[in-house]
């Protein structure tokens, strides 16, 4: 998946609390895979099938503080992509999860005001270009990504970004 600067990402949201850790997002026993779709079937498995079913219908994951704390496992981001998540909106992230999100092409924005406003199931839209999160009729700004991170996101992740760069250098 790669996004363009004009993409508006969103849809129905699923809401989690603070300190959602990587063992909950994707248990260690499934790290033998790097296939996003296969990983996606195990995303949030510790929270049970009802949560997993809702996640499947929710392109926007909403969370409190310190989302993705714990392990450096990149599959915590790729499993979300695999199950169809388009964006994460949280109060804050663990630093490794944030890096992994950018590097796998998953839009992860910090927007506490939007998190305050969002109710489970609300339609939430992230406007990457404008730097806003829209919840029902209200719009909340978030700090724009630095240029180097935008380049990686728009390429669809770090590896894709490098591959495009190498291809360009060959031409």
């Amino acid at each position: 998946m790669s996004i363009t600067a004009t993409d508006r990402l969103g849809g129905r949201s699923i809401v989690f609390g603070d300190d959602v850790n990587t063992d909950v997002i994707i248990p260690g026993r499934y790290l033998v895979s790097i296939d996003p779709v296969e990983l996606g079937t195990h995303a949030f498995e510790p929270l049970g099938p009802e949560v997993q079913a809702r996640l499947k219908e929710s392109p926007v994951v909403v969370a409190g503080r310190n989302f993705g704390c714990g392990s450096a496992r990149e599959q915590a981001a790729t499993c979300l992509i695999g199950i169809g998540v388009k964006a994460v909106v949280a109060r804050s992230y663990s630093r490794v999860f944030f890096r992994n999100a950018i590097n796998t092409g998953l839009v992860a924005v910090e927007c506490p005001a939007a998190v305050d406003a969002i109710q489970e199931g609300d339609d939430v839209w992230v406007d990457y270009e404008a730097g806003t999160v829209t919840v029902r009729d209200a719009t909340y700004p978030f700090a724009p990504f630095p240029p180097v991170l935008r380049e990686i996101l728009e390429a669809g992740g770090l590896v894709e970004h490098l591959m495009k760069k190498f291809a360009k250098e060959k031409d």
Partner: protein
Amino acid sequence: MGKTFAVKALERASGESDLVPGQIVDAYPALYMSHTATWRCIKTWERMGEPELFDKDRIAMVMDHISPAQTSKIAGDHRLSREFRDRMGIRNFFDVNAGIAHVVLMEHGLVKPGDLIIGTDSHSTIYGALGALGTGVGFSEITAAWVTGKLWMRVPESMKVVVQGPLPEGVYPKDVMLKLIGDISADGATYFSVEFHGDWVESLSTSERMTLCNLAMEAGAKNAVVPPDAETMRYLVEHGVDLDTVRPLHSDPDAVFAREIRLDGRSLEPQIAVPHNVDNVVPISEVAGTRVDQVFIGSCANAKYDDLAIAARYLKGNTIAPNVRLVVTPASADIMAKAAADGIVSTLIEAGALITNPGCGACAGSGGAMADGEVTLSTANRNFRGRMGSYESSIYLSSPAVAAASAVTGVITDPSRVLV
């Protein structure tokens, strides 16, 4: 205005000068570590068209999380890693017999003060025990570093943690860290470079400093560091490092710390992290008597030689409680050999311990799983729900002393209450 350690280390790694916190720079690490994620890096490198490596001698690989292989899939992943090693001439390769990556790299003289080191493991903060800036990244970033030699890094603010000692009998660096994490919470140090200062910190061995820097990650730290000193140089020499190649970095006396925390360890009780978060910390008196089914002494936080020696002190001449299984997983082969040579291993076995091969073991879910409703008391660094088997099991975290004393009684026990 003075500079912090982190600013200096990133200036060195980027070749830039006058960096300030918040800036994003291209930094060139001295070492890129991949553990069991190595095969994922190789697959990613293949997908990129197998580009030339920037500097193969900066690549380090350690097969630690699932060792030896438990399935043919994992055996294949290990084989892929060995084939890559042979094909590309990777010198710093450690196989399933070596132990936990972090400890193994330090024991083999691959971590030096002032270096920037990245690893596919969140606990890469541990390299600060030798004055390096260590931080965790995903496997795509390690693969990118193999090829480009660099990664983007945000220059962090710094946090100063000053600990006052000495600690009471039976209280250890692990207790100090659990107390700190409980106080500032699991994101209290997010994005910060954490520096440990004070007389007590200076008095610690490198092994004890590893416990501090390792656990700082559980408060969200980007990296953690103990300023390198004579003890650091002693460790480096002991592990074959030529001191002429060492250029330590220290924060300037007038460096600005965005946050400063003082922790008085002099009257500290042993601390316990209770399920299911590492910052869910209570003094042991609040949970003493809690039944345990399994005790795990392992992980990069607390399975070093001194940790095993402390456990042996409490277990010598004792037998573990019926219905308790005690699993001991030394952090490295060197540690295991030393503990075997001086009788620690036999003391543990005689008390009823199951000694496993060195590595991450039960902490990473490789062996030592729990059934529904079971409880493990662990010396590791994480107690997340479902990390060791059933989603309906519980993990408590403690020092090796509490773990050993509790294995004897079968319930969470203050080590000062067990005769030694």
